[in-house]
């Protein structure tokens, strides 16, 4: 093969440079199974206890705690339940009404960030703005956010919202678990404190699972035999009990138990393979074709000499 030292070094250099350049930024992080911070807190929501209408104190407490505008409609206005509501930049939690076991027993379900153990938003964020804290909250750091909104696409619960109307400082907005003001000091979030019916229980997540199991065991007729959030998408800090099937109170039951970061993990780990194999493959191809051309040229030359 007609490959001199200079050429070889050039190719070797190109290959190494390609590999080095491209492998530098991309590392598949979190390749081992994450079992969660041991003492992380959680909330158990017993939807069978929530009265919804004439209350919604959690919504108002949340607004006050997070300096958000007071919800438009007062607690006594039942029309607020006519439509399914979702979270918005000015409202981190909403109560929705769903048909219950009978006409006069609707189920009210609170919606807010589930604070996943392995959050999709955190794995999707290209600047690492989302963090799962040891206390259990999924926090967001607006100071690095570029506003691509991939977190909103990734979140299976449709929780993150965006300040589309801000030209200069748009932020992703979502429930914070009152991390800075309450959770950090081991206190329950504002919504939990405000609830007059003790719908929500604040505590260590693993204790809450036991509480939930006991509740179901003691009242098998009252609850569906499932703790929503115990295993969904790998487990969430907020968990739910319900008297009716979860898909009838607006919660998706088709999300599976795979932690969302794993959905892209395999793909990301294939990247280094491409970086290693492609340059050598294509440079070999190049050398092969170069050699072919050289042989053709030499034979051409010989023919000319012969005919001369």
């Amino acid at each position: 093969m007609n490959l001199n030292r200079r050429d070889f070094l050039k190719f070797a250099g190109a290959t190494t440079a390609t590999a080095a350049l491209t492998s530098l930024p991309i590392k598949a992080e979190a390749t081992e199974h994450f079992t969660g911070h041991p003492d992380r807190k959680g909330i158990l929501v017993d939807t069978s206890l929530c009265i919804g209408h004439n209350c919604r104190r959690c919504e108002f407490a949340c607004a006050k705690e997070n300096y958000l505008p007071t919800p438009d409609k007062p607690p006594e206005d039942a029309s607020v339940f006519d439509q399914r509501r979702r979270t918005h930049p000015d409202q981190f939690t909403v109560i929705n009404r769903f048909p219950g076991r009978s006409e006069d027993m609707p189920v009210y379900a609170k919606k807010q960030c589930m604070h996943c153990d392995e959050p999709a938003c955190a794995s999707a964020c290209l600047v690492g703005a989302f963090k799962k804290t040891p206390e259990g909250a999924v926090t967001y750091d607006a100071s690095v956010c570029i506003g691509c909104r991939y977190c909103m696409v990734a979140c299976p619960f449709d929780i993150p919202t965006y300040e589309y109307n801000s030209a200069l400082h748009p932020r992703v907005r979502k429930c914070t678990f009152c991390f800075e003001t309450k959770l950090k000091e081991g206190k329950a979030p504002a919504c939990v404190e405000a609830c007059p019916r003790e719908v929500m229980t604040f505590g260590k997540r693993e204790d809450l699972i036991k509480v939930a199991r006991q509740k179901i065991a003691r009242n098998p007729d009252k609850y569906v035999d499932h703790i929503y959030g115990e295993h969904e998408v790998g487990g969430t800090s907020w968990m739910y009990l319900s008297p009716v099937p979860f898909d009838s109170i607006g919660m998706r039951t088709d999300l599976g138990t795979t932690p969302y970061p794993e959905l892209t993990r395999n793909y990301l780990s294939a990247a280094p393979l491409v970086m290693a194999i492609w340059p050598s493959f294509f440079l070999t191809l190049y050398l092969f074709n170069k050699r072919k051309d050289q042989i053709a040229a030499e034979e051409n030359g010989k023919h000319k000499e012969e005919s001369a």
Partner: protein
Amino acid sequence: MATFSPSLPGNVNTGSWLRDKLFLGMTPKAYLRSLITPWHMVAAAILAIGLPVFFQRFAYGIGAVSNLTDTNPWGIWIGIDVLCGVALAAGGFIIASIVHLFGMKEYAPLVRPAILTGFLGYAFVVVGLMFDLGRPWRLPYPMTFAFGTSSVMFEVGWCVALYLGCQFVEMFPPIFEWLGYKRLRAWAMTLVLGTTVLAVVLSTLHQSSLGALFLIAPSKLHPLWYSMYLPVYFLISAVAGGIGMIIFESTLSHRTFKTQTGHLSHAQLDHLALGLAKGGAIVLYLYFWLKVVGLAHEHQWSLLLSGWGLWWLVEVIGFILAPAFLFLFAVRGLSPLLARVAAVWTVLGLILNRLNVSVVALNWNQTERYIPHWKEITITITIITIGVLVFQWMVNRMPILLQHPDYAGESH
């Protein structure tokens, strides 16, 4: 002007640098007058509507010009400007590797226009992204001090940034030829092999990454479009779309820039188009079967009976299999016209696919659906128009379509 020897409007010597390099050898007055063409009038009209909308976007925020919501955070700026922009700009790395790595030198005349299309395609993807990102001035963050290494978007960001740089280096030879820097040009030519290989690596990675972005949304993307093969689909369809764009763009350039393309006869261009058509047929056929395999793998046959199934069939039969056969018929019947029809068809199919994945079939189960605001569409059209104008500006000045006379005879 009408001669058989191709000439570059900028390659004249009037003694004035400005005149030679920028005004195509004309006096400024004559140059300005030469700009008044029907196409420029249309472009001016688009800019007249689009630029105020640009201003509105940055002065009042995304909400002022778009229908994006908390439930539908991505719209046509991602679907068309980014996903289609990147996929249709794939021609650059494809044709460069065909010529430089696979050694098919007869395609050399197509390399520079394809690389320019690729470079501008990516540059305008970044421009388009500026409108979609909430805080576009923070675009360098993932490359400087905030690393979200577990994110597919992080890989996309890095690869697109590196590839844009790589394509800029690939643009050095024509730029230095234009400016007459011979030594720099000679140096730039030594980089061709390295950048071509780097281009293949980076393109493989980010073309597939754009598909992988949606792997994290199995509950949102309709199961007919959601597949573990999404990265492969995006890569292979980008190759098909890139081939389609090369055929389309070379045909259009051949007609528009007649004085520059005289060296490449119609017959030669037809020959190249048919060669590319062969590649297009193979790639599309492979893509079609991979789509079927994906369907079988995830046991989704029953979904074909729904309305969504019909729409999926429209895309897969109508815009993957049909153009594959059209390319095949073009090759068998030696019909360059058919090859060009198939090329446009393929490009449309690619746009349809990207819109299906990112807009139509995403959030298919939500009651609140997204329909783009006219101002979103205006911004997209305006960006594309500016892209075409820049392409035209560069082709008229740099040796893109023709060989610079100083370096004639040299292989690209």
